[in-house]
């Protein structure tokens, strides 16, 4: 048992190191993630530059076949590249959805002419893609979308609203799942398209979150015309196509690095309980230990997954526990750390609050991580059904025409 690279992995890692050393931008300021309200055009253009460099070298899509501009490499090579790249302050957050979810869906369902046209510009960062699935009335139940497409000659006319669309405001193209037949059961009336985000009738508005930031958008469609040639899969089989995207999403879900047991330990040394440092309190110690085993458990679960990849095997289902554990941990740990501070815990002025208010900010944003990319409840369903083999929930909407389903406001 060890964490060492195999000989081949070590060779690949040193190639990557050499390449990054001579190519990764050094003078970059903090490569801020995009914000939907405050669009940083120069952040996007720096990201495009870096993406183009990566694409030329093949590192932009290590596991893709060479015909699509990839390296034809292995999953573990992709991980090794990311590990090394993360040591540099390179811009991220613009192309992940396009290259991680949209383009793989295109590769599976679009014509070869279409892939010829779209894959390369996406890979090189020239064109950005977004994913238009969620709607105000279709979140966890994403097959419940109401945005409709009606046939008009060789085109489809799309009307409706999408929500929680990351990057819609700077995207060139999007993939969308819409309802083409409301008279049949929910999953059977869907179709799948890709479209030009600059089409007439598309309006993008940022959503401001609890945390004050704005990482997502609402996208409104008013008589948006899309040619039938941009349909992926058959009419009425959009759900099948959407599953390709969602399978890829499961691989991409994660939560960011956050204040963990070590920050809590630090705080517990500075805060007193009954005139003694909180770190001496058994309840506090017990909580630190709980979050330590969660953090370490996830860390070593990842090592187990990487081991499978390293051996060329398909990772076991254990990787599915990640967000179930980490998202509530973010929220609970932050909440506990604020509780330790008493009345001071409500203050989130970074100049005044303990540890620059990391716990207060984390507590606000964690509420979103428990929802994004699958709620706690949906993820537990996935573990129960796909890992443990328990039955699906009873679906009362299965054989009822979509337009006869009861709905809320």
């Amino acid at each position, binding site marked *: 048992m060890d964490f060492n690279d195999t000989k081949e992995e070590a060779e690949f890692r040193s190639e990557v190191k050499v390449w990054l050393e001579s190519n990764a931008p050094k003078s970059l300021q903090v490569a801020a993630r995009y914000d939907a309200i405050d669009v940083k055009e120069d952040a996007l253009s720096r990201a495009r530059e870096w993406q183009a460099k990566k694409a030329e070298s093949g590192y932009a899509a290590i596991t893709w076949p060479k015909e699509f501009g990839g390296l034809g490499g292995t999953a573990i090579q992709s991980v090794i590249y990311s590990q090394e790249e993360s040591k540099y302050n390179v811009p991220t957050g613009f192309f992940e959805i396009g290259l991680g979810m949209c383009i793989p869906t295109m590769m599976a369902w679009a014509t070869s002419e279409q892939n010829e046209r779209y894959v390369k510009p996406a890979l090189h960062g020239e064109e950005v893609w977004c994913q238009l699935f969620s709607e105000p009335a279709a979140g966890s139940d994403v097959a419940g979308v109401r945005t409709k497409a009606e046939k008009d000659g060789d085109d489809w006319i799309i009307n409706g609203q999408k929500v929680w669309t990351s990057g819609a405001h700077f995207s060139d193209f999007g993939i969308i799942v819409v309802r083409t037949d409301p008279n049949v059961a929910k999953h059977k009336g869907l179709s799948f398209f890709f479209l030009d985000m600059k089409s007439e009738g598309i309006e993008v508005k940022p959503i401001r979150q609890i945390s004050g930031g704005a990482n997502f958008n609402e996208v409104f469609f008013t008589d948006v015309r899309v040619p039938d040639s941009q349909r992926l899969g058959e009419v009425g089989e959009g759900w099948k196509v959407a599953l390709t995207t969602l399978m890829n999403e499961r691989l991409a879900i994660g939560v960011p690095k956050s204040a963990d047991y070590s920050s809590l*330990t630090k705080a517990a040394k500075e805060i007193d309980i009954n005139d003694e440092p909180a*770190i001496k309190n058994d309840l506090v110690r017990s909580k630190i*230990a709980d979050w330590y085993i969660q953090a370490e*458990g996830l860390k070593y*679960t990842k090592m187990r997954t990487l081991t499978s990849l390293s051996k060329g095997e398909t990772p076991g289902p254990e990787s599915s*526990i990640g967000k179930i554990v980490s998202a509530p941990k973010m929220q609970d740990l932050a909440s506990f750390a604020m509780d330790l501070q008493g009345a001071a815990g409500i203050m989130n002025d970074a100049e005044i609050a303990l540890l620059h208010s990391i716990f207060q900010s984390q507590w606000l944003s964690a509420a979103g991580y428990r929802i994004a990319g699958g709620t706690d409840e949906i993820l537990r369903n996935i*573990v129960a059904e796909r890992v443990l083999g*328990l039955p699906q929930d009873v679906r009362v909407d299965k054989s009822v025409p979509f337009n006869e389903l009861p709905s809320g406001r």
Partner: protein
Amino acid sequence: MNFDFSEDQKLLKEQVSKFLADNCSLSVVREVLEGEAFYSEDVWKGLVELGLTGTTIPEEYGGLGLGALELCVIAEELGRAAAPVPFSSSVYLGTEAIRIFGTESQKEKWLPKLAVGEIISTFALAETSSEPTEKNIKTLFSGGKVSGQKIPVADGSYADIAVVVVKDSDSDIISLAIVELNSKGVERNAVSTLDPSRDHADIIFKDADAELMDVDGEGWDAVERVLASAAVLMAFEQIGGAEASLNMAKDYALDRYAFGRQIGSYQAIKHKLADMYVKIELARSNSFYGAMMLNDEGADLKISAAASRVAATDAFNFAAQENVHTHGGIGFTWEADTQFFYRRSQVLALALGSSLTWKNKLVSQLEAKNVS
């Protein structure tokens, strides 16, 4: 990246798993639980014949000379079967203590016998309702004799020798001593515990012959070291038990219908079982690291042992308890097999000290790490 057991170790795991499936069904656990026997002699004999009691004993002392990783895979399977045998006492604790801290003559005398199962050993630490500490140990060693009381001692009613945690009556320093339990001055009686499939005894020593081990004046460190390796091994046993509990709950949830559907189709049950799975995987990943540290005598042994134990205790306690609950009324009956894991989970959870104690150890290690 090679953070996994080797093919040979996985093969050993399968071999042990098959032996236990054939010879140690839950009806064997029930026989011991309901009967007079302290343990299943047949199962123990089979484990000895497979050479497992000598797993980590060097070949020069008649063992297999394998490492801690092999013991981990064995432990997991014993846990899955809730095997009613003294493996944890005799191997993780007694044998390991002698292997690490025995004098040369003690090793020569005892290890060959332990390897071939000629004798069974145990580890005697607890004395009162308070967690044992360097200060509160009252069993005294003086002039080659030991006096005091150890309770409860796992497998103490029939073990042949015990590694006893003692305090030197002159220096007040903690040490380890080997005592032959059939000798004069040793009085022992079985005590009733939550899990009658695993014997525990009350042992009173009155000037019993004892021989000090080689702990070099640092007896409490030796105790901590023995407990650390046992914590990792027992964590694997707990993981095996937790997984068996989850599987039992899952089978029942698929089989049982209520309100016209399988109870396993209700989210209240699905999410409970998903939570069992999550806790088990967290425990397994922590314990993999504990196993690696134990095998390599790594710098993180103590902290990873504590993490393995805390996580595995949480997983097994939760899985065993919620397995009973998932079964509803039938799960609470004497005839149901749910009780074996429910009982065993609590015995394993407390055997090496409470969760609170291990959480404290974990955080102390964390503090020490941050300082250095």
